[in-house]
């Protein structure tokens, strides 16, 4: 029975994920251009190529590295289905990863396992639906919504994400306390160095070096301690 399950996951589910992912990913890129096509066809607004090229080059030099570094950094966390979904929907570190991880906690499954990946996919899909619903309500009601909020609540909203990250680090770190303490120290040193401009010679390093470095240092530390544990 266990073998049959394995075959189903590897030979049926995974190829299906890639098929849906590639189809929707590339189609999504095409659909993203609908607004500019409407601007051109209906309103006759077409930017001058030279100006657009200037803007694109400044954008690409600011974000271009991220196009490659972020999918690589987050892949070990979100897996293939998660990669297809998270990058089409955006808001990865502040929403997709927390939701996928909390879904795994609620279902009591381990990350990196078959069950873990399936549950993370469910969690991520739900978070996309909730996120789009909240944004849709907000966009329709417009600026009037935020005008209703008192200033104290607006100020408090700024602290939601830092608090969420602190809480999630503890949630997941408590299972691997020594590893987490090492990683917080390493991450602090890395971010401090980035903040002090040590890596300014790398283009846009402040945007991507921290996450990339921490994910792969953490994986390296994890694998090293795993093989030590096996030897002893």
């Amino acid at each position, binding site marked *: 029975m266990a073998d049959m*399950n394995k075959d189903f996951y590897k030979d049926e589910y995974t190829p299906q*994920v890639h098929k*849906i992912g*590639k189809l929707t990913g*590339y189609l999504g890129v095409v659909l*993203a251009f*609908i*607004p*500019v096509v*409407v601007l051109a066809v209906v309103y006759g*607004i*077409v*930017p001058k190529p030279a100006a*657009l090229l200037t803007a*694109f080059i400044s954008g690409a030099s600011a*974000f271009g590295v991220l196009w*490659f570094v972020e*999918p690589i950094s987050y*892949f070990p*966390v979100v*897996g293939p289905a998660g*990669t*297809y979904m998270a*990058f*089409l*929907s*955006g*808001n*990865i570190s502040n929403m997709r990863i*927390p*939701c996928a991880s*909390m879904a795994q906690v*609620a*279902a009591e499954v381990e990350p990196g396992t078959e069950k873990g990946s*399936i*549950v993370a996919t469910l969690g991520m899909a*739900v978070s996309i639906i909730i*996120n*789009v619903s*909240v944004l849709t309500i*907000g*966009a329709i009601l*417009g*600026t009037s919504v935020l005008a209703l909020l008192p200033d104290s609540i607006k100020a408090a*909203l700024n602290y*939601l*994400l*830092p608090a*969420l990250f*602190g*809480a999630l*680090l*503890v*949630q997941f770190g408590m299972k691997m306390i020594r590893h987490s303490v090492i*990683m917080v120290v390493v991450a602090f040193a*890395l*971010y401090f160095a980035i*903040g002090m401009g040590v890596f300014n010679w790398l283009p846009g390093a402040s945007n991507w070096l921290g996450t990339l470095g921490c994910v792969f*240092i953490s994986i390296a530390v994890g*694998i090293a301690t795993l093989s030590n544990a096996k030897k002893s």
Partner: protein
Amino acid sequence: MDVMQMANGLLMWIACGIPVVFVVIQAVLFAKGAYSAGKKVGLTDDKMRKAMKSSAVTSIGPSIVVLSGMLSLLVTVGGPVGWMRLSMIGSVMFESIAAGLGTSAVGVTLGTDAMTEEAFGMAVWTMVLCSVGWVLFATFSANKMEKIEHKLSKGNAGTLTTIASAAIIGVFSAMVASHISKPFYSMLQKAEELAMSSAWHNMLACILGAVIMFVLTKAANKKDIGWLKEWSLTITILGAMIITALV
């Protein structure tokens, strides 16, 4: 015709609505596939429902944060485009910068100068062109990265779990470190008072989040309080936010 009237017109809502609906369709397709696959690998309906509920609760807070970021885009590029750009591939910081780059290439400063038709077109084009890079590379590389990961772990299930768990801790320690290191290097660089105050507050919120979560998780585990396990994250975030705002 006034450019913002056009930017907020019905036609733009429809044009931007198609990609947004598509993002939801993709999520539903993956969720359906995952749900039926979950049943086949032995996940119970109950567990999967719990997982989805937990994710729904977790996503509300960050969604509101994204929403409050979106409102600045609503003013500058109009409702439909702001809505689409944050529902698809978006992140608030990136979108505002990209929109600004687009308009400044034709001499319009976003948020200060009046929007012109040309600048609006530039903003939308730049946001779209600069954001599809992520999707193109992610879509192209997901299956290749999966193969590399399997090769590195030699298909060993234990190693795969270690990689995933370590990667999660890596991501969250990075996010935490970005908040707790900022006051220190900002201080050394003699940042202005307002920036320092917000850096200290963010650090405090981050540390409070960690401490409250630690206490609640310990308590919930020790006395085996089910509801506390389920709600500890929500209680923690609200508590940390309120205390930080009062300080």
